Each structure stands twice: as structure tokens, then as C-alpha cells.
């Protein structure tokens, strides 16, 4: 017979158990006002290894050094996941205080970032110390959304050992596309390839732009159906299916062509200065960087970069501003540049990056930067780039025409 007492005990224990399970696990942020009261700010940034995490955490410690009441809690995930997770957090209202932003994603995510003009003005902050192209890249509808920490044009990384093996002279500053193709063909034998081509738009748009194509209309809408773009993409795809100077890659490899290049049997790859230090530590060969080969309209590359901004939902915007100004300040930039983590967005600190880069990097980058344009994107760029990645693979493999693929992407992305 279940006594009343037992009944209640059971009820109570179930209740307690349920409470324990249902209690939120998240760390509750202190509801103290900013300004010398201890504050913990969350900072969300992508990373690919513990090494990178340590670099960012060191950066975060610089903030506390300068403003002792501010502590930074660093959260991270991988780069591809970062953008979907950011959108999830924006939708859940759980955005961190400091959010990292890439110039490519600015149109899509700008609404989650506070305009920085008020802070720049009230603190007499010198924005001109940063490179103007990347500042433009992180600006949306007239206001800057994040302070940049790095940037760079996309360039060609070339494997000197491979060039030596096939007696191919290194790329010159003004080398042409014809020379590029020739070099690639000379190096493509057996398991060796002269180039590794990816369907990622970041990688092939410089070739398209250099041959006079465009991918956006004058008012920033996506336009992938114009014939110049289809031709440019088709020619690029020929590198894989016709000239066989590049291996055929699979979907998960689309964003990781630099690591395929690191294996040592590929001559060239399109990449940016942000990867230089990773490549230096992993690649077992010497390498150099060269600008995008000159085509009919010259050598036009795209400039992309990343920075840190203040989320619209943070409760401590002033402290967040202080934090990001340190994270992108002279000391941090010098550290990141010396580490090779960032080709500094601050012009003055770029010299430290050059010290650890490869010989000739400064001339190449300067040249690439003069001809480069900011990488402008649309607000649904995440979807656009995923679709181009997917469909583009079939074009590279010769299974589909560039025109058909781009048309398909245009329809699907446009109807979002």
C-alpha cells in the first residue's frame, strides 16, 4: 500500500530530477554595468586548430592587459560551420558580444553588427591606419561594421620544388595566362599536376574578372547568366577536363585545395596570404607567391579580409568597442603579423608579416593590391557560394556546361 508519505517522496524526487535536467547550463552573464565593473565578453571566431585558438586567446589576453576589468571568453568552430552557426545564433538571440566578420559575408550579416561610426567619432579613432580596400569591404550601407585584422588579395602560390623538377622558370611579375597554362602543362605528368582547380568562386572569379567578366549587376544583384562569365568559367574548367593540368576534386575538397597543394605533387594553387603561415609549417618544400596571371583586362584579383565587430544584442557595447580596438590594435596586429596569422590590415604593421613570409612577397602583394578590387557579394552569398561549389564541380569534370550550371545557380539563388 503506497503511503501518502512515500507518494510525496517520489513526487519530490521526480520534481528535483526534472529541475536539475531542465536548468539551463549556460553561464549567466553578470548583469553589472560596464565601466570598471568586471565584465565577461564572449567572442566568437573561427579556427582550424588548437594552434590558432592559442593565438586568438593570446590576443584576447591583450585586451585584459589594457582594460583589466574586461575578460574575454573565446568560442570557436570551424570556418565552414561558423556562418551557419552565426545565423543560428542570430536567430536564437544568442549572439556573442564580439562577432567576427569576413568581408565576403558582410552584406549577409551586417544587420547583426552595430555601426561603428559613433565609437570612432567619440574616441577620435584613426581609421586611416587601416588599408582602405578592406575598410570598404567591411562597410555596409555606408557604415563600417567591423575593424579589420587582416586582408589580402588572392594570389598564386607556387611550389618551387615542382618548378625546379620540370625546369620551369618561376612566374614573373607580369606573366600571362598563356605562360601560366604552359607552365602547368609542363608539370602535369603521372601523379603530378601543374595546378589544382576548385569550383569555389573565390578561386576562379579573379580569372573571370581578369578576362572582363562580371558577376553582379550595377546595383549589386547576382548576375551569373552573362555570356562573358560562362565563357570565363568554361575556360577555367578546361584546365581540369581538357588540359588535365589539375586533378578532379570531390565536394568535401572544394574549400581545401591549399591542403591538396601542400602534399607536394601540385605546382600551383590560388590562395591568400592568410594561409601562408599554415603552408610554411606543413609544406615540405619552398614556395613563392605570384600575382594572378595577366589576361585580356589585366591581372585583377579580389581582396577579402576579416575583422571583429560588436553585435547588436550585446549589453556592453562600450566595453566591446574597447575590446575590438585592442584586438585590432598595433600590439595585436604586430603579434599576429609576426606569427604569420594575419597580413595586417594596419598598413604600418605589414612589415612584420613580410619578415616571416617568403622572399619577394612584398613586391608581389603590392602589385596584386594595386590591380585588385574589393570582393563584393550579395546578402545571400552563403547560399550562392554553396550552389556554385556544388554545380561547379560538374563543370570542372566536363559533365555539364558552365552556362547551364551558372543558369541553374542563378535561378535557385535568385528565388531564395
Amino acid at each position, binding site marked *: 500500500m*503506497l503511503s501518502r508519505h512515500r507518494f510525496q517522496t*517520489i*513526487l519530490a524526487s*521526480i520534481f528535483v530530477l*526534472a529541475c536539475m535536467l531542465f536548468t539551463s547550463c549556460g553561464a549567466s552573464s553578470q548583469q553589472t554595468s560596464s565601466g570598471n565593473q568586471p565584465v565577461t565578453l564572449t567572442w566568437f571566431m573561427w579556427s582550424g586548430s588548437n594552434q590558432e585558438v592559442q593565438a586568438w586567446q593570446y590576443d584576447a589576453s591583450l585586451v585584459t592587459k589594457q582594460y583589466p576589468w574586461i575578460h574575454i571568453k573565446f568560442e570557436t568552430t570551424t570556418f565552414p560551420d561558423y556562418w*551557419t552557426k552565426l*545565423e*543560428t545564433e*542570430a*536567430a536564437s538571440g544568442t549572439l556573442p558580444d564580439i562577432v567576427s566578420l569576413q568581408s565576403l559575408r558582410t552584406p549577409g550579416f551586417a*544587420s547583426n553588427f552595430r555601426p561603428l561610426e559613433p565609437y570612432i567619432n567619440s574616441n577620435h579613432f584613426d581609421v586611416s591606419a587601416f588599408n582602405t580596400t578592406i575598410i570598404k569591404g567591411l562597410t555596409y550601407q555606408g557604415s563600417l561594421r567591423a575593424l579589420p585584422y587582416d586582408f589580402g588579395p588572392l594570389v598564386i602560390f607556387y611550389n618551387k620544388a615542382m618548378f625546379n623538377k620540370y625546369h620551369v622558370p618561376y612566374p614573373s611579375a607580369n606573366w600571362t595566362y598563356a605562360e601560366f597554362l604552359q607552365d602547368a602543362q609542363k608539370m602535369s605528368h603521372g*601523379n603530378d*599536376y601543374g595546378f589544382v582547380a576548385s569550383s569555389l568562386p573565390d578561386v576562379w572569379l579573379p580569372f573571370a574578372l581578369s578576362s572582363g567578366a562580371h558577376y553582379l549587376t550595377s546595383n549589386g544583384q547576382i548576375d551569373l547568366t552573362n555570356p562573358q562569365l560562362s565563357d570565363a568559367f568554361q575556360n577555367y574548367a578546361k584546365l581540369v577536363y581538357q588540359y588535365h593540368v589539375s*586533378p*578532379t*576534386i*570531390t*565536394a*568535401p575538397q572544394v574549400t581545401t585545395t591549399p591542403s*591538396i597543394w601542400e*602534399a607536394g*605533387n601540385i605546382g600551383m594553387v590560388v590562395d591568400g596570404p592568410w594561409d601562408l603561415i599554415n603552408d610554411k609549417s606543413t609544406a615540405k618544400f619552398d614556395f613563392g607567391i605570384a600575382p594572378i596571371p595577366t589576361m585580356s583586362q589585366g591581372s585583377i584579383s579580389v581582396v577579402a579580409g576579416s575583422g571583429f565587430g560588436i553585435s547588436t544584442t550585446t549589453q556592453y557595447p562600450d566595453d566591446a568597442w574597447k575590446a575590438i580596438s585592442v584586438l585590432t590594435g598595433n600590439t595585436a596586429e604586430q603579434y599576429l603579423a609576426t606569427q604569420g596569422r594575419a597580413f595586417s590590415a594596419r598598413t604600418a604593421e605589414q612589415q612584420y608579416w613580410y619578415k616571416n613570409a617568403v622572399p619577394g612577397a612584398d613586391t608581389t602583394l603590392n602589385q596584386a593590391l594595386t590591380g585588385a578590387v574589393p570582393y563584393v557579394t550579395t546578402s*545571400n552569398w*552563403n*547560399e550562392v557560394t*554553396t550552389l556554385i561549389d*556544388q*554545380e561547379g*564541380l*560538374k563543370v570542372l*569534370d566536363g*559533365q*555539364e556546361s558552365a552556362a547551364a*550550371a551558372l543558369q*541553374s545557380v542563378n*535561378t*535557385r539563388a535568385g*528565388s*531564395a
Partner: protein
Amino acid sequence: MIVKQPDSDQTSVDRGAPSIHSNVSHITAKDRQLRLSKWREQGIAYLFLAPNILGFLFFTLFSLIVAFGLSLFKWSLLTPPEFTGLDNYVRLLTKDPVFHQVLLNTLYFVFGYVPLNMLLSLGIAIWLSGPIRAKNLFRIIMFLPVMTPAVGVALVWMLMYNYTPSGLINQTLAAVFHIRGPNWLGSDTWAMPSVILMSLWYGFGYNVLVFSAGLQAIPQHFYEAAAIDGAKRWQKFWSITLPLLSPSLFFGLVLTVITSFQVFDQVYILTLGGPGVDTTTLVYYTYQNGFTYFHMGYAATISTVLFLLIMVVTLAQFVLQKRWVHYEV
């Protein structure tokens, strides 16, 4: 399991017949007692049910209803939801250039994977039912992949399928057979078969166990009687084994079909739905729309269509079972 045999048919309450004189009061008291215990039983029942049912109602039943409702809206999370009625369905079935391909891909997988799985596991199960030593060890080995995360095994299969640089499969083909292997995961001809092959390896062990259990339960005397009558092996198989195994076969078939419609993990790892959309299956398409593009309403529509598809196929199987499944003692 040893079952305790009841030693009598005595029912639980038998206090003897009430005497005539105390009839009325006795029954009322008993009545009250019964009613009280009935209420108590209900109370206890609800108490027992409570933890499970709260979670069930909340996370499963309620979610199911929300999913159906969501498919009638257009919602991208950051903007307020917009009621669109059946527009999503219309768009999915008529205007979406990709859905037909996705549907075909899923059917390709189901019709490729299920028959191969059934044949393979049935064959192995029957083989193992013969005079084999350590049969349980073999069964367990076949079953091992099922218990491992699909992600882990998909990664090693990706390694083996790798095209540049050559993974194990292409290296073996080149060295032993002098064939140049295709781009398993990147070619539109081979991508889906590659996914099917990996899934086959991953999943067949489950049915081996199910069919083995079913085979074990077939009484031996049927075979002995048939042997006396001079039946050959083939006849025994066809007339005894198959019919008596049919409940297990049915169960295995239904379950395998249902799980094959939901393939996701290996697609995500091996091909990311590519090349193009050649291996994008219904669940992958749902995921993409819901959690990469954040078209929540549309994703709910796709998943509802998937659910209806599974329901229809399963119901059809249940209807057809009368024709070939023998439920005997």
C-alpha cells in the same frame, strides 16, 4: 528466461461468499474499496507515465504537429513568418528544379540498397545457420559496423575512395588489375553507387542478426519430417525456411526501407550531396534548406513529403504482407 508456471487457477480475490444477513453493507464497503483502489491505480498510472509522457508530448507529438503547420509558412528565422498555405508544396513539386532529382536520388538509393542488403544478409544468415563453428562470433563481427558512428566509418571509406591522391581502392585496382579506377565520389555515375556500397557494408549486419534469430526459431522437426519425405535442400528452403522466416523477413524489409529513406550521415561526409546534386537525398535536402539556407518553412515541407512517402510505402508493405508473410504458431 524461466517462466514461473501458475500452480492454480485461483483468482486473486476470493474471500468466500458473503453471508446473506450482512449482504448490503458488505457490498458497499467492497464497492468503496474497489473504487478507491481504481482511483489510486489511475493516479499511480499517471505518475508513472508523467516523466515519459511529458517529454513525449512536448518533444515528439507537439513537434510533429508543428512540423506540419510550419510547412504552410514561409519563414527565414530573422524575418517574421508568412502564411503561404500550400504554396510550398506547389513550389516543391512543380517549380523547384532540384526536387525531382532529389527524389530520384533517394529512390535510386532505396532500390539499390534494400534488395542488396536483404539478399546479402539473408544469404549470410542462412550460411551461418548451417554446421558452422563459432557462428555467434561471425554474427557479431558482421554486426560491428552497425554499432559504430556512420561518420567515423564514412571518413575511412572516403580515404579508401580518394581519387587524388589515390586511395586504397584505386591503388589496388591499378596494381592488381591494371585498371584506372574512376573518381568514385566525384563522378556522376559512381557517386551514388559508392554511397550505396559503403552503406551496405555498414548496415547489413543488423539484418543478419534479425534473420539469424528468425532462423533459429524455426522448429527442427519440420526439416526432419521433410528429410524423411526425401525433400532436397532447395525444396526445404523454399517450402519450409522461407515461409517460416517470412515474419522476420518482413520486419527486416520494413525497417531497412524506412532507414534507407533517411540516409544522411554518409552523404554529408562522402559527397556533401554532390557532385552537383547527384547524391542529394531527401534528408540532406531538408537539412540544406533548413540549416544552411534557413528556409524553415520550405524545409518542413520537404520533410513532410518524406514522411508521407515513408508512410505510404510502409502501409503498402503492410497491406501486401498478407500475400507472402505467414504468421504461424
